């Protein structure tokens, strides 16, 4: 049976673990602690948990100031409210000032399926990766969330980490070697490279299995760090398979596919297909159905890859 785990709960437990390891870790909440899995941190380290209410612009600047005194602030809330809303503060106070702050956007993508586009974030990767010096991480399984939380704590510099909301299947063993900036080849293949990230890595993973059954040799790559991108791995995959399909719960503009295309265009351009939401505010409704509306279910991904290769 598939091992499904709640990404917020998983992150919250990991935050306590990094808090135990490093007493400079502090948690900043915009009335978002219980919703973001930070309640255990609050209970374990009440003196290192700060509540500010709903003021994301203010908290972003506050996190910069705390980092300037040596703290390692984690600012966690619903993804659009820590990215697009306080963007200028993120750009200037964290990016330009190079502050060691970890911005975590939870319930990203279309998690808030029924609440509609105000609460969805399909542009966060795009805007956050424009900021010089920012690391952008999009873990694709609960094990990866834990490993990424430790890795971004150890990394000195501003980070954006995107988390989904619905339970995610475990795709990696506990001893899996996670390194920021290093993509992971989950399965080798020669006909096409299928690249997944974040919440829909599992869909790409399932699509690869469907395609294998149909006799298509798929190289499956997990890009958990969109910035800095593992260019070497992607150039190698482009050279060896000649075709790339990307899968992400994000807009086509500026996301994983975009980042890979930028990396390949000058060095090794190959045909690409980007499976993502194209230039529209997403609709509303049940989450899995919404993914289906934009071709992000495994069967649909497999069909798109087949058609792309035909």
């Amino acid at each position, binding site marked *: 049976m598939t091992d499904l785990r709640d990404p917020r709960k998983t992150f919250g437990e990991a935050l306590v673990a990094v808090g135990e390891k490093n007493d400079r870790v502090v948690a900043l909440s915009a009335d978002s602690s219980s919703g973001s899995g930070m309640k255990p941190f609050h209970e374990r380290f009440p003196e290192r948990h700060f509540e500010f209410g709903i003021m994301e*612009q*203010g908290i972003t*600047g506050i996190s910069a*100031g705390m980092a*300037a005194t040596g703290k390692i602030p984690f600012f966690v809330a619903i993804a659009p409210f820590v990215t697009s809303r306080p963007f200028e503060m993120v750009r200037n*106070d964290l990016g330009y000032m190079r502050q060691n702050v970890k911005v975590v956007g939870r319930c990203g993508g279309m998690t808030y399926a029924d609440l509609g586009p105000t609460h969805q974030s399909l542009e966060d990767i795009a805007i956050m990766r424009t900021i010089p010096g920012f690391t952008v991480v999009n873990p694709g399984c609960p094990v990866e969330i834990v490993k990424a939380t430790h890795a971004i704590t150890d990394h000195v510099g501003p980070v954006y980490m995107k988390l989904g909301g619905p339970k995610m299947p475990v795709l990696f063993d506990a001893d899996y070697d996670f390194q920021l900036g290093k993509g992971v080849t989950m399965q080798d293949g020669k006909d096409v490279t299928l690249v997944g990230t974040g919440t829909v890595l599992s869909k790409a993973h399932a699509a690869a299995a469907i395609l294998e059954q149909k006799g298509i040799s798929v190289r499956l790559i997990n890009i958990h760090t969109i910035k800095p991108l593992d260019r070497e791995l992607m150039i190698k995959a482009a050279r060896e398979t000649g075709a790339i399909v990307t899968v992400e719960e994000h807009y086509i503009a500026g996301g994983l596919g975009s980042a890979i295309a930028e990396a390949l265009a000058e060095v090794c351009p190959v045909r690409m297909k980007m499976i993502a939401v194209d230039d529209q505010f997403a609709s509303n409704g049940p989450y899995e159905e919404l993914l289906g509306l934009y071709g992000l279910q495994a069967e649909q991904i497999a069909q798109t890859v087949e058609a792309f290769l035909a």
Partner: protein
Amino acid sequence: MNTISDDDKRFLERKALASRKNVLRMIKAGKTGHVGGALSIIDTITALYFKVMKVDPQNPKDPDRDRFILSAGHKCLALYAVLAEAGFFEKEILDTYGKISSKLPGHPDMHKLPGVESNTGALGHGLSIGVGMALGLAMEKRAEGPGVYVAMGDGELAEGSNWEAAAAAAHHKLDNLMVFADRNRLQISGNTVDVMSYEPLEDRWAAFGWSVRTIGGHDMRTLVETITSMPFEKGKPSCVILDTIKAKGLSFAEDKASYHYWKATPEEMEMAEKDLAEIEERLA
């Protein structure tokens, strides 16, 4: 509260004059600059760096130092002028203002110049950063912990983000934090009260939970006595409303919105130097 002797007062006035001369030196190099606001806040910054704050130009990253954030970053001529006067960097750097890749951009960059605590320029950022610093420093729970000072423009107060930070400072009882609202009553388009009034400033800051005092912003003794009275009330952040004159010290430019940003003609520069020479004679 600390008061100062007549000699100390005169010393600070001379330092403020030297800093105003540094401002002119930069304008001469770069031809233009945000002179109006720089000269309304420069006396406060002088008092901070030469009498109030624990800072060491030889060790600008000392973790125990007091912090100053110029939220209204366009007034950076004043900050650069005082930092140079205090010895944070060589005065020759002042002559690079306006030059390619100068360490003195039109808004301050902490990674380019020692002594700059924060990158500011976009308005409505500095107070949040100051709240974070005050909170981070308060976590150390030292009896004589460092203080954090944030200077804001009165036009800047229209940015809503300031009021998020103001509420957070009071909620978290940051009595190691002081804000200066530089009320020169002018912004680029005209009178602040006509553009977007946040008056009465005293009532607004008090309503947000701050302990507020209003003083004249060009008198050194009042400045030192007021700043060293932080916290005005235990458990509350302190707000100083500074009644100031835009472009203070340049007779032809004082209290005129048109000198928010100054494109200095040679004739004006001559007048400016004459004005400062007259101040120097008075202080002799």
